[in-house]
């Protein structure tokens, strides 16, 4: 198993001047479950968007450093090609297609990877297996489902593209603790049973550290600390200073 994703001194700005990341470096090993932690505004979302080359759509860009996926420099590759290579993002705030049904949302994930009818059907089975609630809600308009169902659908939409590296931005945001636990359990299962490599940004550090095996901590756009999740959990002092006390 090698390194699947590697950030080497990556810097990024918004609007040509607002600096969001300064020379951050970290690695995600194949098969790992990595948590990317940090307080609000630390640069977690920017890091994940840089990985999928989604910054240009928000008037941002990578100004220095290298991002390697499976050994290839992907810094300037079009997002659709990332998906086809297996690097699949789930955006902050879920960003479902609200007017589409849950199942239609799922199908778009497979279309994005260029899958045909057979792979679509297989993917739906796999997602409904992981989140049985989605099966009941498959015909519901996505914008009218609960926050938890929307997050599950957003994760399901990503799974439809059969990710090799699955990149999730704050899946716990705005959800009740029980739902958060359900979602992280599902992620753990994907990681353990199907070998999907995970990179999950979270402000909710305690839940993330309990499920992840490695953690990278960002502080105002710099990578300040990384280590085994089990070791970081023990350091409550670290949690307070780095995670803005956001321990649930």
């Amino acid at each position, binding site marked *: 198993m090698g390194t699947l994703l590697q950030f080497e001194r990556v810097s990024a700005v918004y609007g040509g001047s607002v600096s969001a990341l300064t020379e951050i470096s970290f690695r995600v090993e194949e098969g790992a479950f990595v948590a990317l932690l940090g307080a609000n505004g630390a640069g977690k979302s920017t890091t994940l968007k840089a990985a*999928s080359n*989604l910054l240009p*759509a*928000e*008037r941002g860009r990578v100004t220095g450093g290298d991002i390697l996926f499976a050994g290839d420099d992907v810094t300037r590759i079009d*997002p*659709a090609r*990332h*998906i*086809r290579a297996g690097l*699949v*993002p789930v*955006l902050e705030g879920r*960003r*479902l*297609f*609200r*007017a*589409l049904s849950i199942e*239609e*949302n799922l*199908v*778009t*994930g497979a*279309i*994005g*990877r260029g899958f045909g009818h057979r792979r679509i059907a297989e993917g739906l089975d796999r997602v409904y297996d992981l989140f049985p609630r989605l099966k009941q809600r498959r015909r519901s*308009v996505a*914008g*009218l*489902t*609960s*926050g938890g169902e929307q997050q599950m659908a957003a994760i399901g*939409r990503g799974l439809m*593209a059969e990710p090799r590296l699955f990149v999730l931005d704050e899946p716990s945001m*705005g959800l009740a603790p029980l739902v958060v636990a359900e979602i992280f359990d599902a992620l753990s299962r994907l990681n353990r049973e199907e070998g999907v490599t995970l990179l999950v940004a979270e402000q909710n550090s305690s839940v993330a550290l309990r499920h992840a095996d490695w953690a990278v901590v960002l502080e105002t756009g710099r990578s300040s600390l990384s280590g085994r999740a089990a070791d970081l959990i023990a350091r409550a002092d670290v949690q307070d200073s780095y995670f803005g006390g956001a321990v649930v």
Partner: protein
Amino acid sequence: MMDWLNFLFGVEVAVGGLLSGVMYALVAIGFVLIYKTSGVLNFAQGAMVLFAALTFVSLIERGVPFWLAIVFTLAVMTMLGFAIERSVLRPLTNRSPMVLFMATLGLSYVIEGAAQLIWGTQVHRLDLGISNEPIDFGGIYVSQFDLAAAAIAAAMVAALTLFFRFTRTGLSFRAVADDTFAATAVGLRLNLIRSTVWTAAGFVALVAGLLWGARLGVQFSLSVVVLKALPVLVLGGFDSILGAIVAGLMIGASEKLAEVYLGPYVGGGIESWFAYAVALVVLLVRPSGLFGTKLVERY
């Protein structure tokens, strides 16, 4: 007896209005398609209608058979839509809606200029071989041409609806229309989808161009039918195909009825401004139109 005749007359006016409303809806749908995917009010839609009609009629005048002319014009409109998307809109992605609107405004002059250069400026008569004799439905006379136009428009709307509902490209289109950033992140190919939609808009322009052209003659004033589509869009909502249809019918029927029943009191000519008055009221009361997007979301 007199009451009955008056009633029949009223129905006849309303039906005539509804049928001309179909024609408004036809132009409005072209706008909606592009607005939903590119977020731009494509002012050049009218010029595309004109261009389609002129190309078709010029081919017919040169002895090209009807169906061949249809196919050829469709190919030309497809290429035109594709070229516009590539050369004008794609370089302007992420620019403000005003910039995009100005670009399409400029584009409409370029297309009209090109049409004039290629096909000349004279008025052409376009005969689709559909009779204009009215048919008698139990005392109500309805124009055969208007009926045929409505049937063609309905078939086109049905085809578009099926396409958007049941094909992968159609689903992708609805996803892009819903959330462009999410669609990018999911890996949907925006450029391909936008090109497809411009192609569809070119097709709609062709159908509208033929029907309007057969009615009014193919001439440069045809590109002004866009002005009639604007109040329809305001009433129906810029991003709703259903809205374009319903609003087209409503405006068509109400302006005819207003002309007949209110006209005598204000000295006539209501038909030319009634739609705009309706649009103004809608803008004040309900800016997103009858069917326009109101965010549906529950937290």
